[in-house]
């Protein structure tokens, strides 16, 4: 691009170390959560950079990021709540509302679409009784469309939790959920 709109602000002042006064959320995060967040801190130049990792760590244990969780993480990393909220709402893998115990990410990108992804989506909706973005009544599954999962030669695909399922068909969807009452 030929034009310069503004000089990108890239130098970030180090967060000034303050006298630790326990905040209202001092006891909110568990020792395990704090230990895992602390493990990430030396890997980056600023505490701000740990925000995304910290949210993912806490989400791993709590399922989603509630307002209190957000405030606790912000306090722990000395970030403003607004700043961390901006981050939390930007990224698709951070949930600001409750999700099921397992999240079903079905790929809705082009190769899966060509190979029948729409039919897979319809079958998932029928089987789970929910639409994309919803959670089953028993709190087990949330159905979410996801960007191309990078397994296009095995389309259509989906990921349940961390588990990939490939070459999907209606038959295969039935097999995957066989024995469950979802």
């Amino acid at each position, binding site marked *: 691009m030929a034009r310069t709109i503004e000089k990108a602000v*890239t130098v970030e002042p180090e967060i000034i170390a303050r006298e630790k006064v326990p905040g209202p959320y001092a006891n909110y995060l568990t020792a395990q959560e704090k230990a895992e967040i602390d493990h990430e801190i030396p890997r980056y130049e600023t505490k701000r950079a740990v925000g995304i990792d910290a949210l993912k760590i806490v989400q791993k244990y709590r399922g989603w990021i509630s307002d209190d969780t957000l405030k606790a993480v912000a306090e722990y990393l000395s970030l403003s709540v607004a700043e961390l909220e901006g981050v939390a709402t930007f990224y*698709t893998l951070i949930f600001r509302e409750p999700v099921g115990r397992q999240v079903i990410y079905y790929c809705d*990108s082009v190769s899966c679409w060509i190979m029948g992804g729409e*039919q*897979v989506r319809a079958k998932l909706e029928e089987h789970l009784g929910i639409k994309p973005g919803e959670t089953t009544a028993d709190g087990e599954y949330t159905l979410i469309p996801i960007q191309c999962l990078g397994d*296009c030669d095995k*389309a259509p695909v989906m990921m349940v939790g961390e588990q990939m399922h490939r070459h999907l068909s209606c038959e295969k969807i039935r097999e995957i959920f066989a024995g469950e009452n979802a």
Partner: protein
Amino acid sequence: MKASTPLTKNIGPENIAATIEQYQANGGYAGLKKALSTMQPNDVVETVQAANLRGRGGAGFNTGLKWSFVPRGEGSPATKYLVCNADEMEPGTFKDRLLMERDPHQLIEGMIISAYGIEAVRAYIFIRGEYHLAADRLEHAIEEAYEHGYLGHNICGTKFSLDLYVHRSAGNYICGEETALLNALEGKRANPRAKPPFPQVSGLWGKPTVVNNVETLCNISHIIANGPEWYRGLGKGADAGTKLFGVSGRVKNPGTWELPMGTSIREIIELHAGGMQDGYKLKAFLPGGGSTDFLGPEHLDLPMDYDAIGKAGSRMGTGTMIILDDKTCPIGMVRNLMRFFAKESCGFCTPCRDGLPWVEKILTDIEQGKGSVRELDQLAQQVWNMRPGNTFCALAPGAAEPLQSALKMFRKEFLDHIERGCCPYEAAETRFVGA
């Protein structure tokens, strides 16, 4: 050993990662030892530049030349960073996943050599959050590399030290744009930055930073071990080396193959991918992922070279092709792509944030038979609005590529939908997958 397919020489049919012992037994870490013992950092940069390795993330810029813009040597900033862009999310692209899951040490060795070349003190692998297996295997391999003295302080007994970390991202296609990626690594919203300054001068935390694609970095150890002449000789035509090419869609044998640069599209689709499935004809294809222009059957004999594909009016992009067959609605395919880009816009620039949802809506109307001829002009107007230079980054211009080529190539199909008032193709919900 000089393999003709260096990138995949450790990758077998089973989905397991090469261990450090297997990797070393097959010539692994020889390139690193050679670089550290016989070459100065600048020699590494010049060797890679001479090899004419071009960025495999899609842009095709000479990698060594990109590195040469980093201020190096005495008086340069002491802290510099190397970042591997492993945010593979281009629709229809599935090559970096393979390289990371199956041969993580190849990427790690490439990164250590590259960091030595640009004098980086710390390196990050920025991997998309959905690639759990790849991230796990990389983290395990990084531990092995530390244990063997390839990472950490005084690597291989030299003065060179490097730390390498995996950063698991939290989603969003825009993170693959290199300046957005740097913002994401800094813990910010992934809005792209204005360039200049370029990351090589002022990147991560304002320090000189190089961002390279996974596949690009995987080439480095081989270039250093075997020399630039050998590397250039691997290519069939104007471009050097080999490349992972892939095909998805209604072909008999979809997959990924390491082939010489300059391999013809016909060979990739008809020989390696086995040709079209019975009952389907090739109508068109995107040569290198979702943000490249459509090409047609008349382009099958072109070589997969950056410049040859560019001259035909498209881009080689990631080299993973998406095939459109004659039974799939081209309007539906473009609508799917535009929905992707509309969703993935970071929301910063107006033509992208507001233009793409509008495009998606028009295409949805046309696909459902509710469109008008006048709307085709509106789509062309949107393509013009999203042209390069009108937005901060390349997301909108990339989205415009399949759209602008579809408007030309599929004009008859567009008019067909409008005149009939319905989609002449079978609905996506009922197609293909068996009951």
